[in-house]
């Protein structure tokens, strides 16, 4: 079936090899443009001064941290339903990027919170649910790296990703309710003043850049995972890069 042609690692490997450099170049160009707009063109904010400029990093990174978990759940469902080998590899390739972006989101948020709120951390609903999202990523990575059998590891990881994705909205709303019960939301992102269009442009450029970066790095990582997983296969042995590596190692 044509739809599943690229589900075979053998066919996906060269496709990913063609895609990731293009995506990486595009991501770099957009990031440079976004940073230029954000730091050179956009004016400073009337209330927050220069500190608001963290949104050019913080918002795209938080956005992608959430999207990547959904993407992992999507690949996991595909893997559980169609039993495709590539799905597990894609999920696994996305997880470290998701964890990194969730961590960056918390870190940049803390750096912004210190001048704005006077504290690095408050138990705000959004902060708490991002922290829990980071734990979900770490749990997935820990589980898949602890199970040695690749098939069981992929499927166990897929189960965890799906269970986690079902839970993410429940966690988000429960944490929101918990916070509003205990204390009024004294500070919140949602009250930000209406954004000037030049600021919005910078943020959208950066979001697109982070999006493409995540896709590029995931494709790059999935190529390595395919090589490791399929190292016994003949098509891997015949790859020019594997052959070159072998002669190099043979020569030394």
């Amino acid at each position: 079936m044509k739809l599943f042609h690229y589900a075979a690692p053998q066919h996906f490997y060269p496709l990913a090899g063609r895609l990731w450099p293009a995506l990486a170049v595009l991501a770099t160009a957009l990031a440079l443009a976004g940073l230029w707009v954000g730091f050179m063109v956009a004016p400073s904010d009337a209330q927050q001064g220069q500190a608001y400029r963290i949104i050019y990093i913080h918002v795209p990174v938080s956005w992608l941290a959430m999207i990547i978990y959904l993407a992992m759940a999507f690949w996991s469902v595909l893997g559980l339903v169609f039993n495709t080998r590539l799905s597990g590899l894609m999920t696994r390739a996305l997880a470290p990027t998701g964890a990194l972006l969730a961590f960056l989101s918390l870190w940049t948020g803390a750096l912004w919170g210190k001048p704005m709120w006077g504290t690095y951390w408050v138990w705000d609903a959004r902060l708490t649910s991002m922290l829990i999202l980071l734990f979900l990523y770490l749990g997935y990575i820990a589980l898949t790296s602890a199970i040695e059998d690749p098939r069981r590891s992929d499927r166990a990881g897929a189960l965890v990703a799906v269970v986690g994705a079902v839970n993410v909205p429940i966690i988000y709303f429960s944490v929101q309710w918990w916070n509003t019960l205990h204390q009024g939301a004294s500070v919140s992102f949602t009250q930000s003043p209406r954004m000037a269009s030049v600021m919005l442009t910078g943020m959208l450029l950066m979001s697109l850049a982070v999006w493409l970066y995540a896709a590029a790095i995931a494709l790059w990582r999935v190529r390595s995972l395919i090589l490791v997983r399929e190292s016994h296969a003949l098509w891997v042995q015949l790859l020019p890069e594997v052959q070159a590596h072998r002669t190099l190692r043979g020569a030394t």
Partner: protein
Amino acid sequence: MNALALPSPWQAISGVLRRDLRMALRRKSEWLGAVFFFVLVAALFPLAIGPEPDTLRLIGPGVLWVAALLASMLSLGRLFEADHQDGSLEQLALSAAPLSWSISAKLLAHWLISGLPLVLLSPLLGLQFGLAPEALGMLALTLLIGTPVLSLLGAIGAALTLGVRGGGVLQSLLLLPLYVPVLVFGTGAVDAQMRGLGGQAHVSVLLALLLATAALSPWACAAAVRLALE
């Protein structure tokens, strides 16, 4: 085939339930350990924070909920492990009754042995924290609804980490994020009751969580157990 008189699913459930309960009653140290853990953790908090009655009354519900959560997670390790080692889990998977049914029976037995004692003990420990009678009742009620949810969610983690090196730590890393809603609504109900707001809304959400996990968790557990047996 029919001459063999295969057991009906209900017979399989009651068989697994009776077997698990009998095994647990013969090995008392295992489930009593989790109960004593619950009591000890609850006793450590006043020692660490100080004996101020007002402070203790404030933190009491949260402390007891976290202690119950940790005790319930502590007891998950033996849910499938012994049966996995002696091969009876494979027999369950091979039997004619659906694996998710047998696992539901195992979960019920597990909750009766390790969850119910916590519920029954909680008013006593709540008294030590100076909770008012209506708060004590609400605490016991939320634990009665909440500990089965903890067992149902925890079983997924226990089944996924079955036979994996360092399974215990891994299991807590997987499960603690998933336990957050139960903890929030469980303590929220007691808190609302103490403030005179009534905890009905929280209790309804807890019941919804119980129904959803009871419907979905046995299937996820069965899938995870089959993975471990492959």
